[in-house]
């Protein structure tokens, strides 16, 4: 069974794959927006914390999404 961190990364990757047809940049933007709309603060905080955690390694596009979520949290 996946850990919660692994599951969050998996969920973000799954959302990205469903937006991939828009092109990478648009998919990252749409996934970020989706996470901001539907994930609770704890899940978002956990995702941001994973940016500085080497284990598990985040795929590049998932990392890009989580960075934007982090930036959004910082600006809020």
């Amino acid at each position, binding site marked *: 069974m996946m850990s919660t961190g692994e599951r969050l990364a998996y969920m973000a990757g799954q959302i990205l*794959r469903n937006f991939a047809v828009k092109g990478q940049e648009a998919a990252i933007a749409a996934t970020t927006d989706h996470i901001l709309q539907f994930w609770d603060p704890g899940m978002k905080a956990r995702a941001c914390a994973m940016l500085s955690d080497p284990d598990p390694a985040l795929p590049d596009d998932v990392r890009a999404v989580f960075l934007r979520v982090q930036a959004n949290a910082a600006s809020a």
Partner: protein
Amino acid sequence: MTFTREKDFGTPEKHGETVSLTIDGQQVSVPAGTSIMRAAAMVDTAIPKLCATDSLESFGSCRMCLVEIEGRKGYPASCTTPVSPDMVVRTETEKLRKLRRGVMELYISDHPLDCLTCSANGDCELQDVAGSVGLRDVRFGYEGASHLEGCKDESNPYFTFDPAKCIVCSRCVRACDEVQGTLALTVDGRGFASKISASQDEGFLASECVSCGACVQACPTSALIENTVIEKGTPERAVVTTCAYCGVGCTFRAEMRGEDLVRMVPWKQGKANHGHSCVKGRFAWGYAQHRDRVLNPMVRASVDEPWREVSWDEAIAHVASEFRRIQNAYGTRAIGGVTSSRCTNEETFLVQKLIRQGFGNNNVDTCARVCHSPTGYGLKTTFGTSAGTQDFDSVEQADVVLVIGANPTDGHPVFGSRLKKRLRQGAKLIVIDPRRIDLVRSPHVEAGYHLPLRPGTNVALLTAMAHVIVTEGLVDEAYVRERCDGEAYGEWAAFVSEPARSPEAIEDLIGVPAADVRAAARLYATGGGKSGGRGAIYYGLGVTEHSQGSSTVMAIANLAMATGNVGKPGTGVNPLRGQNNVQGSCDMGSFPHELPGYRHVSDSATRALFEADWGTALDAEPGLRINNMLDAATDGTFKGIFIQGEDILQSDPNTTHVAAGLAAMECVVVQDLFLNETANYAHVFLPGSTFLEKDGTFTNAERRIQRVRKVMEPKNGYADWEVVQLVANAMGLGWTYTHPSQVMDEIARLTPTFAGVNYDVLEQRGSVQWPMNAAAPEGTPTMHIDHFVRGKGLFVVTDYVPTDERTGPRFPLLLTTGRILSQYNVGAQTRRTPNEAWHAEDRLEIHPHDAENRGIRDGDWVSLRSRAGETSLRALITDRVAPGVVYTTFHHPDTQANVITTDFSDWATNCPEYKVTAVQVAPSNGPSEWQKSYRAQAEQSRRIEPAEPAE
């Protein structure tokens, strides 16, 4: 309301130009096509009748309803004679009286005269007609050929057939044909030997009869009568209320003697069911009085301990103090709740209010998470609102119907019957389903195309249909230009036109011949091949419960928009919602990101509205979904939950994961009728009330808001909304509701789409469909008529992304799950009724080829294993499923089909992927180790310590 039968006009209502005529000197104006019998009934002239009833087409066999018409010879039957302009009719003359008495003598000469001891005494049309025609003697004697005495069929658990009481009017046969569409009954034999026969002269239980009750309702005598009437006598009052099973939302007359429910009779004026019913709503209400109901609150410190019965005060105080303790220790967001789609709108509204106002967070979710959450996401994105577009009546104007991932004759039987009626009238049918559901081929109904796709490939198939529609020039371009976002359409059309999206390119992937996909797409796009034809799509959980559930909903919406099939009767995108109030629970703000009326919690203007009304600041951040709550629980950050009327341990995927999440919490509060599976992990049990014991409203799949009316006092002491209020007030919220109508007033005050809804309006109109407000004062049967709610309809490119659940050498078969007519979801209600006679256990449907390869015979115990877990059940060998696919229902906790299902879920909403699980099937000796240990744990957990006697 005191007891009277619903008025019977004798023949069905007609719609047409007005025709005026004279009946017994009275001027009458009625629609053309109306029978004389109905026209007379409309001015309260009751022409005697036996074979006629207004739910059935006229038949003209009993010869009781004869009339005289000026200028016409003879005595025509008023049921089969339509009105005509300036017709002059006489319903009572000496000649007519003589004729009717003569006919009645013949009937009575072969009818037992045991009226005083007959179960229909006082509620018998034969008795009434004998009285009304003035029958005083029977010249042919009373012996008759009562040759059918002693031939009672008591096989059906709910009704008895006594052929001795039968007058062979064939109303039952015609009800089965015309209303239910099963065609299980016939008149066997001739003359005195005539006898109603189920299937090939079988008992009712063993026959094809689906026990919908239409025949019982149609019977004018006691030949077919409810066993409860035989046992209890005829009712003395009736209260109209709404069924608590599926999302069709049938309304019933609860016919009572005192506080004792005698029978539920479908209400003819009910706009969702028009007087029809299924075996569940009509008969399977005995669970409400079942001995398993828990009527006292219970508390325990640990799930290892037995339950301890306590007072309501103690239980409520314990809940409040535990929730506050947890929040003080772990934070505001450490608790949450689950609303119930079985409960009323008002109760659901109050539970989410308790969480938002009292808990101070948005950790609220509902069972729609595991069924139609993708509908909410998909239809809001494409059309602008999270609901189906039509009313059920719309199907009567459809020329082609596409059913995808739904099994209406089992899951939504009353709508299924209406659909079959339309199909018998000539509408075309396309079925997209891995399994050969009954609709594919049943009496007088045959799908034009059945596309038995591989589970998990819905998006690929629908995109291929779009490919055909776009590349073959079948798009309704004027509609798209006027009604839809042009840029989005252009992108979508270019995407679906790519050769890689063609039916030929994906034939191997989906397992359906390309020619069939092309033909089905053409049939839908051309409105069944009829000029101006209308196409309607109906779908169910076979669409939503996938990793691409939301994409599939949007792909369906794309097809409907491209063909101009949204915004008028006979068309639309119609989710067949599962639970009685799943639409309502979503409307009421049960999702963690939305306030009532589908408004995002981050919208400060909406939040301000609620904050002003509730006098507290609301959280602007979305809360946790059920599966995220369970994750957070195993992580140690989520510690307490209030679950009203939902059994997440049995209904949610990956039972092991759910159990681990619940076990990790410090306070699990379950409010339910029974000690359900989830209660095995609960610390507080609050007894629930049934739909018969409370007032409120349910909202069905067509957005129809209907009253639920209390017909008896709650056996547990409180209606569910009162229990929520007790908890809220123990937490210091100061609620003062004294009736659910006040809650509806608050909903209307805070929710623009409900602005015009209140109990007075519901009382006057029977039901209304939201949106109902100043812009739509009559409510809204069909949505998006002039424009989409979001403005322009939005085409969304839906790329096929395969599920991560893959078959392979270890798990070579695909399991898909579903429901059966006689049982309902986790079976908490139906398993506690005689419906067990039809489906006492879950069976695994497996194709003969796959069974033979594994040495499995019909009825053998087999193990069903997936990456998530293992269970066992008995095999049912059938070619309903394709090779490589197996199917089971999930109604029985002993099977626990969700031990097998995985954590994979819809990308947008986390709706679980119940419909695709890679499995292996092998012969086994019986229940698995897991099943045995589960049973032992459940038994241990359900122990109740008797309350100490009061001093």
